[in-house]
C-alpha cells in the first residue's frame, strides 16, 4: 500500500541524530498523512551529507512520493531566521499547509526556525519531547505514547 502525498509541507532543521527529524516527519504522517514536500535546513558539518541521505532514504520507505529539498544555512541568527522565513513563505506560496518542526538542531537553529516560522505565518509549529532519554534513538511508533509529548508552539496560524 502506497500512501498518497498531501498538501502538507514540513520545514525542519537537521541535527546529528536523524531520529529527531524522522520522528517529526512520522508525527506529521500520523496526524495528516504523507507530506508532499519536506525542506531540510542544515549547517555545514562533516556528518551532514550522511544524515540528510539517511533521513530521505529512510522516510521514503513510508512515503515514496514525498519530495525533499536541502538548504544550507549560512550561519548567524538574523540570516538563519531569514532563510527559515523564506522557506516557509515559498512553500505557502505554492499552496502548501506548512508545519515547522523545531525539535532538532542546535538551540540557535531552533530559535531561528521558530522566529522564521512565526514571521512567515507557518500553519503549525511543533516540538516533540521524549521523557525517557533511553528512547532518543527509537522510532516514534515504538515509543510508549505517554512518554512522548507533542507541543504545538504558539505563533503558528
Amino acid at each position, binding site marked *: *500500500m502506497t500512501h498518497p502525498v498531501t498538501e502538507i509541507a514540513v520545514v525542519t532543521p537537521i541535527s*546529528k541524530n*536523524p*531520529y529527531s527529524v*524522522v520522528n517529526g516527519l*512520522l508525527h506529521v504522517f500520523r496526524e495528516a498523512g504523507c507530506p508532499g514536500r519536506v525542506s531540510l535546513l542544515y549547517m555545514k558539518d562533516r*556528518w551532514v551529507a*550522511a*544524515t540528510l*541521505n*539517511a533521513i530521505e*532514504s*529512510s*522516510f521514503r*520507505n*513510508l512515503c515514496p512520493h514525498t519530495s525533499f529539498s536541502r538548504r544550507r544555512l549560512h550561519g548567524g541568527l538574523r540570516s538563519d531566521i531569514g532563510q527559515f522565513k523564506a522557506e516557509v513563505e515559498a512553500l505557502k506560496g505554492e499552496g502548501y499547509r506548512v508545519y515547522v518542526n523545531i525539535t532538532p538542531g542546535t538551540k540557535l537553529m531552533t530559535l531561528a526556525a521558530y522566529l522564521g516560522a512565526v514571521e512567515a505565518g507557518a500553519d503549525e509549529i511543533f516540538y516533540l519531547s521524549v521523557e*525517557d532519554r533511553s528512547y532518543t534513538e527509537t*522510532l516514534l*511508533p*515504538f*515509543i*510508549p*505514547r*505517554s*512518554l512522548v509529548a507533542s507541543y504545538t508552539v504558539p505563533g503558528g496560524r
Partner: protein
Amino acid sequence: MEAKLFVGELALLLNPYDEFNVVVEGRAVLRIDWQRAIVKVAGTTTDPLGLRDVLLEAGVILPRNMDEVLGRLEDYSRSPTPEEPRLKAVALDTNIFYNLFLTTLEEERSLPPRVYVSKCVLDEISSKADSKAKPEEREAFVSWRRAAAALSEYLRHRHGLRVIQRSKCHGDLDIVRSYVNYAGSQGVDFLFLTFDVRSRSYALIEALPMITLSTPSPPRAGESFATTHRRIQRLLYTMAVHHASITLTGSAGRVALSLGEYDDILARRLTASTTSNRIASELSLLGRYRKIRETLRLARPG
C-alpha cells in the same frame, strides 16, 4: 491480521490502549495501565507462585534484597588496587538466566565489568532448550520454553560474559566447583550469584563467597506495582513464555499473543493476532517502520 513483533516493538501494539487486561486461559490475571506503567493483579489468581515468577522475570518485582545485591556487586566491580591486588569478578548460577536477571540488572544499574559463567551452566540450559517437548506434555513444554528463554538471555548478554570451561558437569555442585577451581588457578575472587538455596549450601561448603537473591513474596489479588513501559513489554514476553499464549483485552480491541516456535523465543518475538481494525492498521505499517529503522541504523553517521 497477524504479525510477529519483537519485545521492543510492542509499544506499536499497546499504544492504542490506555489500559488492558492480560487474559490467560479465559481468566483475567493482570490489569495493566499502559499510560502510567502500572501492573495490577486482577481478582483471585489460581497460580500466585507462577505469577510471582513471571513478574520477577520481567523485572516488575525485584528480589527482596536487591539493594544489598547491588551493593555487593559494586564491591566486585572495582578494579584491583595495591591494597587489594586480586581481581574481583561475579560468577553466575543457572537460575540467573532462568529469571532473566541480567536484563533486570542492566536496567537497574549496569552489568559488572567482569562476569563469568561456567560451561556447566550453559550445558544445563542448552540441553533442556534443545530437548524440544510437545505442547500436550504441558510441564515439559513449559520447561522447554523457559530454557529457550534462558538461552536467549545468555545470547543477549554473551559479549559481556566470560565462559569457564569444565569437563565434568553433573549438577549444581559441579557448577560451584568450576568457579572454585578457576578462582584458585587464576587468582580471581568470585562473588557467586544465585537464587537457589541448594547452590547456596554448596557454595558454603566449598567456601565460595556468594549472595543469594531473595525471591519476593507471591503477589496478592489487587496488589499494584509501579514499573516501566519496557518491563511491561518484557512481562508480556515472560507471560507468553510460561503460558504459550495470552490475550490482551481493552477498549482498543482484542489481541492474542503467542510464543511457540524455538527461534521466536530465542529472538524474543511474539506473534500478534487481532481482529481490531485500529490495531490492525498499526500492524500494517510495521514492515515500513522496520525499513525506516534499518535504513537509519545502516546510515548512522560516525
